[in-house]
């Protein structure tokens, strides 16, 4: 792969900002369109942020089947932790294109995600590690790993929306 194949930072930013907007607006079906058919979504535990979900107990380790099921559940009526929906607001910064890996591209970004619910505001702080792929010319997400800097989900209690 030549360096000219690498997406520009602006291109990656456009993708991540679009993702953030879709998630904040609860347009989860449209968000699924940003993912490849083999996408994974992972949140490692706060004490082993570099862990591997095959041998470490994660908070979330979804393959595409589980991601789609999660979306279906969240848009249904009985995901009580998100019914009524939380308000969320994502601030995505420090976007970096880290290079290529096989046919994929690696990128990272810092985040602060605010979750507002029942008059509490909880702030999730950390960074994303993305594996991106071109699918028919469109830049898509093959893996999104959400690495929390907060040391525990306290007082957040849960990650019930898509972080």
């Amino acid at each position, binding site marked *: 792969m030549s360096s000219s194949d690498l997406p520009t930072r602006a291109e990656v930013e456009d993708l991540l900002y679009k993702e953030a907007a879709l998630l904040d607006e609860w347009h989860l079906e449209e968000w699924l369109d940003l993912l490849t058919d083999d996408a994974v979504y992972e949140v490692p535990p706060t004490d082993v942020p570099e862990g591997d979900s095959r041998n470490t107990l*994660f908070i979330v380790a979804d393959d595409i089947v589980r991601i789609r099921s999660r979306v279906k559940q969240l848009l249904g009526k009985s995901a009580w*932790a998100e019914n009524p929906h939380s308000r969320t607001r994502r601030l995505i910064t420090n976007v970096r294109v880290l290079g290529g890996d096989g046919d994929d591209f690696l990128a990272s970004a810092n985040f602060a995600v605010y979750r507002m619910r029942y008059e509490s505001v909880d702030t999730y702080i950390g960074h994303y590690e993305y594996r991106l792929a071109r699918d028919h010319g469109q830049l898509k997400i093959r893996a999104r790993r959400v690495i929390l800097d907060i040391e525990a989900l*306290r007082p957040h209690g849960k990650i019930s929306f898509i972080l």
Partner: protein
Amino acid sequence: MDESNINYVSEDQGAGLFRVNRRAFTDPECLENERRRIFEKCWIYVGHESEVPHAGDYRSRSVAGRPMVLVRGDDGVIRVLLNTCTHRGTMICRQKAGNAKTFQCPYHAWTFNSRGQLVGVPGEESYSDAFSREERALASPAQVDNYRGFIFACFDPAAQSLYDYLAGAREYLDLVADQSELGMKVVAGQQSYSARANWKLLVENSYDGYHGMPTHQRYFSFLSDIGVDMKGRDVAKPSHQMAVDLGNGHAVLEYESAWGRPIAHWVPSFGEHRKPHFEELRRKFENRFGKERAWRICETSRNLGVFPNLVINDIMAITIRTFYPVSPDYMEVNAWALAPAEESAEDSAMRLDNFLTFLGPGGFATPDDVEMLESCQRGFANHEVGWSDISRGMKREQPSITDESQMRAFWRRWNQLMTEPTVRRARRAA
């Protein structure tokens, strides 16, 4: 206010009614009494021996609101040390986990070995002859003991032994410990979360068969979507099920469940290629324990509550969960996955995958539980509704897992400890 004037639990056996005063979930005085009468009197779970496999291995963590260190000494003995320098108070262990020959206090460099003995005091000649290193060793809870790998501590020197304390819960810890010939191990990764709710709401919730379908409908829809056969194993009407009062406030639910179990109930979502392996596992258990116990270990799920704040749910995976109140309306929760040490990397990966479908703060069920508990706690602000009803199935001879007899077992013990005269009071009365 004198706690003896408050009636927290109201039980009418004849009428079949059992109610809990909601002030047990909201009063700061109640929590103060719980700290003294329950958390400083009962055996409290600290950790699992597999978390400190080698000499010098340690884990520092908060147990019942106190910083402690679980450490395996250079003599191989597992100890629980109170994480405070005996000099002026600093926490002597400031890392979450590691291996150390010594713990040196960063403040004045007092040094303790892995057995907690004081082995170094800079400028020791400045102390009088009365100063004794022995007396300044790191402190430990009055009692520390291990039952089949589960390590507990107790601050009451007069408390009964851990073995006696566990009472009927031992049988259920055995059903977990027996799943391995090499010993069970805690998997890397701790789920550290919380709930804006009283800690006893999580006790109730952790073995509440009644809430399964309404609260976790989305989980059962997910199971159905991935091809799990729900017929005959509907969690609300399982073919085999019981709720057992295990004594001393411990209780358990045991039932045949729809979901697959890594030990060793195969379901299609585990993959056809794994079926022979599951059959072989099952045969191994039958050889070790006979058909009946093998069936029980493999096919039944168990939600175990060890009084006061330990939950071991052996369901679609095994979770160890412990929690402690920070305030009446807020608790911290820690959870781990437990697995047989000999499990292959592939099986272990499948177990963890199965764990996450339901359990944990990002699972398809636990967040909804947290939501329900927080919702209860907010509802308690309506203090005109003073009591919660825990009467379900009270007149039934064989309690069902969708009844509330297991919760009544907890509450009766809780109420006994909260209301019985303390030694000091008894003396004063005499």
